């Protein structure tokens, strides 16, 4: 009796399993892994022109397949459509495998499209289950997105990895930008402020960049560089932040990881380098007479990384002077970022959100003409800078050189 029942269960189970088949199974060999996606708008038809950087596994993976095949590591496919999804499906006419977006690392937006507006671009990324919201977003600076993702890179075989690696490294070592993901952009579009997106620029000859020969030289004919950050107003590209402004922005947004600040040494300009090792920023809103006043408080610590003039670093007052210089320098960069934002009336600094959090009633009153208030609101920056270490030596060797000259 018991055996009968067991057999019955097994039978039911067997039928259940075999009826499901592999309902959602996809073999690896039927998938095309899209690692980067470029979105442009074709000017004539006003359709989206979406390009996909699809990796060719055999030519990337080393090992049994012989390593480094004869083909390029990636191939670019393009599809057109009124929506992103129709563009993706239209691309199937060209791609023999199903495009698979779960490993998407980059979304590059062409500059023209960015100028026309990106407000309605991101629904697909949120709605579809495949792409991740942690995918990096970039704006192609001065070009379409397609040539950016078509350019082959050395060091990293897969161009998408190369670009994401550059963003990661420059944001941790230089902090003139920081990793901006789809989720950040969405938040910028939905919240009270504006999004800010990293810029990427193609230098050199785009046609040569597509060829394999681009990575067979010591100096590539075409190179993809992370440059600046795009600022938006009402979802439309308005301008670019560079260098100091960009770094000021990372400071205000508390994304500063590490960078190098140059200080003056007596008369010698920019001869002392300070490496930031820790930095934290607090944004505090004070409401005065119905108007918000923004306090930015930055606390930063750093090491001396280079000293090109003979100063006595064992002296506390010398260090104290350096710290003061550093505070001033930081302050000026932060203010330059604020000014750039106020000039474009683009609140990518998150000031609006800060007001909303601090005083929701006030925000309800002023939100209609916020961009005007933002452009004129006062910002107070306070910086506490500390130099912690002077590196492996205290006195610069220049000071000893000086003494030698004197003796002679």
């Amino acid at each position: 009796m018991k055996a009968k029942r067991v057999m019955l269960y097994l039978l039911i189970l067997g039928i259940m399993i075999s009826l499901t088949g592999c309902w959602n199974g996809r073999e690896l060999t039927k998938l095309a892994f899209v690692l980067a996606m470029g979105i442009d708008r074709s000017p004539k038809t006003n359709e989206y022109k979406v390009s996909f950087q699809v990796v060719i596994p055999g030519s990337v993976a080393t090992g049994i397949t012989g390593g480094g095949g004869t083909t390029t590591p990636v191939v670019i496919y393009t599809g057109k459509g009124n929506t992103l999804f129709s563009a993706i499906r239209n691309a199937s006419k060209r791609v023999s495998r199903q495009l698979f977006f779960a490993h998407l690392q980059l979304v590059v937006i062409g500059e023209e499209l960015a100028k026309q507006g990106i407000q309605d671009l991101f629904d697909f990324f949120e709605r579809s289950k495949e792409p991740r919201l942690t995918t990096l977003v970039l704006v192609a600076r001065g070009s379409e997105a397609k040539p950016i993702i078509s350019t082959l890179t050395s060091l990293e075989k897969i161009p998408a990895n190369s670009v994401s690696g550059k963003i990661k490294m420059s944001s941790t070592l230089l902090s003139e930008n920081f990793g901006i993901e789809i989720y950040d952009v969405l938040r910028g579009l939905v919240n009270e402020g504006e999004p800010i997106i990293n810029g990427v620029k193609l230098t050199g000859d785009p046609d040569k960049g597509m060829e394999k020969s681009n990575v067979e030289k010591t100096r590539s004919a075409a190179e993809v560089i992370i440059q600046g950050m795009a600022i938006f107003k009402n979802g439309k590209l308005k301008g670019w932040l560079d260098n100091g402004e960009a770094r000021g922005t990372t400071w205000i947004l508390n994304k500063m990881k590490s960078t190098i600040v140059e200080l003056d040494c007596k008369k010698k300009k920019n001869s002392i380098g300070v490496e930031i090792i820790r930095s934290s920023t607090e944004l505090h809103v004070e409401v005065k007479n119905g108007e918000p006043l923004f306090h930015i408080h930055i606390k930063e610590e750093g090491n001396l990384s280079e000293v090109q003039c003979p100063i006595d670093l064992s002296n506390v007052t010398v260090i104290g002077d350096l710290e003061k210089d550093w505070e001033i320098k930081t302050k000026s960069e932060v203010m330059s970022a604020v000014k750039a934002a106020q000039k474009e009336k683009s609140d990518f600094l998150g000031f609006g959100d800060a007001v909303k959090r601090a005083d929701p009633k006030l925000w309800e009153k002023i939100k209609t003409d916020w961009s005007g208030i933002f452009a004129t609101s006062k910002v107070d920056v306070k910086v506490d800078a500390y130099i912690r270490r002077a590196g492996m030596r205290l006195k610069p060797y220049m000071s000893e050189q000086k003494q030698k000259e004197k003796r002679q």
Partner: protein
Amino acid sequence: MGIPFGGYPMSFFRNESKKNKKQSHDQNENTDLRKSGNIPLYSDLNANLDKIKSELGNSSDLIIRHFELGSFQAQAAAVFVDTLIDNKLVDEFILGSLMINTAQESHNNIEADKSVFDFIKDNARTIREVQVVTSWNELIMSVFSGDTVILIDGWAQGISGSTRGGEFRSITESSSQVVIRGPKDGFTESISTNISLVRRRIKSPNLWLEHMKIGDVTQTDIGIMYIKGIVNDKLVKEVKDRLQAIEIDAILESGYIEDLIQDETFTPFPTMLNTERPDSVAGNLLEGRVAIFIDGTPFVLVAPTTFFSYFQSVEDYYQRFDIGFAIRLLRYLAFFISLLGPSIYIAAITFHQEMIPTALLISLAAQRDGVPFPAFVEAVMMEITFEILREAGVRMPRAIGQAVSIVGALVLGQAAVQAGIISAAMVIVVAITGIASFAVPVFNLAISVRLLRFLIMVFAASTGFYGIAIIMIMIIGHLCSLRSFGVPYMAPFAPFNLPDQDDAILHFPLWARLTRPHLTGKKNNKRMKNHLAPTPGPEEK
């Protein structure tokens, strides 16, 4: 059978088969030892000897040696089976009996009232154990146990001297459970040797042994061993009841007994432990379990067991605790790898590609480029190949073993990958799975894992991780429903018991394992004195 008249054709066959059975049973009765059993011996020597010869079909190894007891003027015969006795002992027994007889002839005349039978029995000093046999059953049993029986004309009794001997395998290292540190002796095929190996370890009067014979034809000796005062008496009774209920013609190995007394047949999980190691048996006895010795096999059964006892190697207790602990955790990891390895691989690459790190995914995709089969088929092919290799490796004559491993490693491993039939990653997965399955210390469980692995692979291939989750829930549910001689199989986790956690998945130092497992050793729970942890002694002054 409940239907009085054969209402449907099936019953016709049933009745017939029943009839057949009965007939064959009747035929059996003529040769059944039990039936001729309690008939007493004849008093006539020749009649006895003739009957012995005819009952045993004139077996050529049956030796009957006639002699005359000079002083008593009595005919006698020694009956033994040539292949079961120790020659020296037989010589001493017979010769000794006779020599004493002649030497003390003068005395005997004085004590004439003492019979020849008692005289021989009492004077057989050269032998350890002497018994009187009165029935045919006893006579034949003792002859086939290796005893020598002396029959004297005019007496319906025989004198049985224990002359058991013959060739046995000597005590060697256990081949199925090898340790690095720990005793190297293993059980042999002789039950008395096996019992002695355990007795030597536990020199306690509380170590009780009960004897039993099972198997109508084989009359196999069974020993039930436990430590009185630690063991639960109900458990002993249950084991005995189950053993006594066995009515079978033959017991040739411990597996026969296990099959007949285990709680659940339709489960891939073993509910009784078998071991070749006397120290393992001793340890289990001390935790209140019962050991069942079966003559003719080096495997001793231990019951009851829990799922977690299959992960305990005796060496855990001999190594320093931290190492024992780490190795035990490693074993659980190996168990899960060998259970789930191919399934997770299949599920990940056919359903959950987003879960694989990009670089690894690209590498896997490159390997699978050109592999003609879906991952599931590939995995099943490789797993079956591996199982065949393993099975062949076990059964094969030693000399050919090397050839098999070369063919297995080179042809199947390398060539299949190079030919693009199998992806290299799959070979790696199968290899890890295979090796991991050997890390489970009890072979019983390792086999069940092999079976379950295929089942889980089917689920993984049909619905991915969702399927793996479902089958794992089913397996755990099944495990929780199992019992081994009244002990829940998943104890001490289901039901949960805190003190027993000291030696389940975790493994505490010896001084912290104060109590025996509460389900088997409740009666005498305390194992040792408290506070045995090494501490600095009192300060010297």
